[in-house]
């Protein structure tokens, strides 16, 4: 099927990069590196990779973070624009939708481009979970609990994943572990094939005990993972539960950014667009099962585009938890090992720096599009704490048409 064009100008994803993802731990890659510096690394790399783009043409820098304080606190889009050496005339803002932060940075700037408010934007996100553990400094309104607006478990992401296992008994721990092991293997293969490194920006990292080093590869993956080994892991969120450190995404430090333009601006500047934005949508679900969020958001985005799930040739789904991806796949009738889904592996292997992940999905989808000119449409989707989902549908600019 051919998608229904959305109102406004056509918006394209011209390029995307990310830092290597590090362990959010005192011995992690970025323990002594600032979160805003990770964003700066991405912004500068995008400008370097796209010399056809005059920096003064960047009209907005939107950067997301789930915690907006400390080194993620100073209006990230504006402060990182200045730190990256963009002209003072470039405005910017900070944005937050927790795990869909970078995705929201993309869709919000894309909407501005579509209505003609601007031509070129940089959008991305960062989460230094080592500096900012999820929920640190939060002060949830007591009414959530006293009026039973949400269950206390809704704010513990691991417990929401357990709740998904409860809701769908067919989503067993065995299926989750098998999915997780496959994610690790797919990622290891993609790294070996050079499909991951091509969009990484290395980051010089300070180490007061070791001196300067260079973060040039992700450090969270466990390629040696087997289903058998996963079966032995403990379930920290519930005794005899199903969610483990092995079938969930690890705590991660990292940043992402991408370059969005109006399609006509890309043509004017001579940029090579990789993907065309087809539609996007967000949707809310019960916070206790926040992992279901991508289902209604994807249905909504597909409906807007006039497409069915069968039209989608590639899926980049954030693997906050294996069970959450599996609930999506079951809903749409897609097999657990469908090769259209997360061909390079996912967050279980790579890591999930909350607000940064959305653009990682897009950057990977863009690379897969270039490898698969037979695929016309792809989906990037992720779930969001407190019960949301976000989905963006993309069209492959390298699509070669019906044969």
């Amino acid at each position, binding site marked *: 099927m051919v998608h229904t064009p959305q109102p406004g100008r056509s918006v394209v994803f011209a390029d995307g990069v990310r830092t290597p993802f590090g362990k959010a731990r005192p011995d992690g890659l970025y323990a002594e590196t600032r979160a805003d510096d990770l964003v700066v690394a991405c912004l500068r790399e995008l400008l370097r990779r796209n010399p056809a783009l005059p920096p003064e043409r960047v009209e907005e820098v939107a950067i997301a973070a789930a915690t907006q304080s400390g080194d993620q606190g100073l209006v990230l889009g504006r402060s990182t624009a200045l*730190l990256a050496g963009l002209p003072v005339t470039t405005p910017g803002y900070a944005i937050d939708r927790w795990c869909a932060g970078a995705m929201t940075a993309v869709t919000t700037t894309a909407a501005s481009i579509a209505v003609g408010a601007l031509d070129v934007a940089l959008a991305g996100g960062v989460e230094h979970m080592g500096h900012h553990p999820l929920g640190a400094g939060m002060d949830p309104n007591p009414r959530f609990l006293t009026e039973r607006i949400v269950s206390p478990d809704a704010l513990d992401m691991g417990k929401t994943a357990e709740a998904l296992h409860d809701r769908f008994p067919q989503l067993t721990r065995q299926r989750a572990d098998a999915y997780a092991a496959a994610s690790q293997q797919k990622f290891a293969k993609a790294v070996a094939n050079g499909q991951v490194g091509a969009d990484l920006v*290395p*980051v*010089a990292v300070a180490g007061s*005990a070791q*001196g300067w080093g*260079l973060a040039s590869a992700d450090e969270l993956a466990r390629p040696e993972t087997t289903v058998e080994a996963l079966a032995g892991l403990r379930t920290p969120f519930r005794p005899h539960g199903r969610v483990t450190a092995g079938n969930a995404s690890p705590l991660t430090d990292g940043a992402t950014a991408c370059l969005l333009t109006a399609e006509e601006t890309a043509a004017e500047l001579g940029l090579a667009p990789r993907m065309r934005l087809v539609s996007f949508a967000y949707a809310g679900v019960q916070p206790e099962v926040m992992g279901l969020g991508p289902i209604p958001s994807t249905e909504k985005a597909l409906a807007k585009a006039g497409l069915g799930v069968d039209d989608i040739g590639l899926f980049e789904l954030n693997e906050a938890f294996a069970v959450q991806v599996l609930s999506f796949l079951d809903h749409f009738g897609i097999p657990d090992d469908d090769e259209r889904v997360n061909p390079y592996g996912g967050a279980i292997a790579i890591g999930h720096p909350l607000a940064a992940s959305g653009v990682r999905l897009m950057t990977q989808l863009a690379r897969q599009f270039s490898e698969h000119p037979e695929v016309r449409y792809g989906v990037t989707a992720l779930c969001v704490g407190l019960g949301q989902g976000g989905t963006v549908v993309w069209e492959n600019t390298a699509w070669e048409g019906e044969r």
Partner: protein
Amino acid sequence: MPVHVRTLDLPGPGGAPAGRMALLTLDSGDPRRPFTLGPATLPELGAAIERAERLVLDEGLVAIGVTGANGVFCAGADLKAVARTPSPEEAAATGALGHAVLGRLATTTVPTFAYVNGLALGGGLETALHCSYRTVSTAARGLGLPEAHLGLVPGWGGTWLLPRIAGPDVAVQVAIENALAGNKTITGPQAARLGIADAAFEPADFLLQSLRWTASVLAGESVVERPGPADEATWAAALARGRAVADARVHGAAPAPYRTLDLLAASRTAGREEHFAAEEAALGDLLVSGELRAGLYAFDLVQRYAKAPAGAPAPELARKVTCVGVVGAGLMASQLALLFLHRLKVPVVLTDVDQARVDKGVDFVRSGVEELLGKGRIDADTANRLKASVSGSVDKAALGGADFVVEAVFEDLAVKQDVLRELEPLVRPDAVLATNTSSLPVTEMASVLQHPERLVGFHFFNPVAVLPLVEVVRTPSTDDAALATAFAVGRSLGKTCVLVRDAPAFVVNRISTRMFDEVVRALDAGTPLLEVERSLDELGLPMTPFRLASFVGPAVMLHVHETLAAAFPERYRVSDNLRRWVAAGGPDLVTRKGPVEETGAAEGLFTTGSQPLSGPEVLARVQDALADEVRRVLDDGVVAGPQDVDVCLVLGTGHPLFTGGITPYLDRVGASERVTGRRFHPAD
């Protein structure tokens, strides 16, 4: 101060790894202290290089890199350790150790890269020069070879490497011209332009880009072009230029610049090992020389000692200064007003007796602000702010809002007393009053005040925007709050303040005048003017005596002589020839620029005796007079110690570091013992 060694994958094109390298980080472990090379760190760097070399063999590394931390690459040799070097043999051994350690960076089996992230002085820059390639951060500041300024040579390979990398012209510029210009340093972009660094990258991702560049050099994609050996004419011109600079600056009086030039000259044909041996020999001589000890002493004085002025009250006693009054709108007063305005950025009110003078003063300040704007020292908004912050009035009541009022009216005690008397009821009760006098007794000015505790002397040196010294004068009645405020203001003005007791002509003028008086005595006795002028070359002063007198103004000189002759008639006098010179309008007796020559103005002006002195006799008499006067200054308790005298002379009149100001020199030449029977400083 650890030297870290870490291995990393070089980033190749498209994110592909381009081989592994070892990266050494020079890390002081303390962001407030720079990394230096001393008895502990030099061997540690050697061990780190050795570890990297072993990794090259064991793990097939393709390169070794060196970088720094916290905006510092390496601040060079640890001066404290240098100052302890006891014998010529050990001094030469220090040189040999430096060559052995740093030289390894040039002899490894893989290329070496210095990533100069910031400050790189002396041995720090030499560390980079030993490497095969250098990148530099565009934000780096403080690159240079200051050795000749301190009394040393760049003796860890610098005199051999720098001309080979960047040519003799650049070597002379960095090691001689910049070093002797008060230790001027260059920036990262300048280093790249001069060919000292092969590539420059912005600080935001300096190390990443340096590593990428490393990969591209190793892959043969980036090619570094270096100038070939310079021809003889280029060498000769560069060395001649260096010699002229050295002569103008130290008049042959300090050995270090000349040894540096000799080494640069020899480097043209000398082999590496042979030349390094020559550097070590030079270090062996210079490290134990009196000039170096004095240089290190004076360097420490201005860098560290003077930052916490001896005897100053606790800084927290200072009152906040939010508005400054300047009484007088003459040239000195206007210069002060501009300085206060520029540095303190608070409203400045000028007053004088008639409107024309007030207008002239305010105009002077406003055009001074325009000049700062034109030079890029301030931006347009600041210029607007400053111009709007200066005002003038003929009514001293306009000073009512000022918390710090400095008077700079005519240098006459009665006039100044009148001004202070008139001022006191008009200003805030807690306002600090300061008098800018060069030789009048502050105590007598205080005597006319109801509240003498708030008067301080605040003696600037001309030109006030340039010379970094202020003598802060305490009278017996000055209280700690007023004094602390004066020190705080002086510091905000960017000046080094020295606390002096109220005594005739304080320190700088008292000692300089004693010296000049001795010079005039020699002239009076019939010594030819030029003989007199050349006699003090050994002191390395920025100007010969009569050049300085012309610069200061003969009338001002006469005034200070009169003050001191009145205070100390047994030692100071006023020469009739000095009076004649002033009476004749004070024409320049010698040329103001270039080689010192007579202008002819002295012809028939003076009445002189017929017992001329030789240059060495004049010098000896000056040494003796200085030793005597400095001892008296100390015995009178004018300042806390000889260090304060030396700070005053280095910063107030530009005495060179290699004399240590004056007291180490007087000890070294024996004048202090000859005249007073004891030294100023203990013998080593």
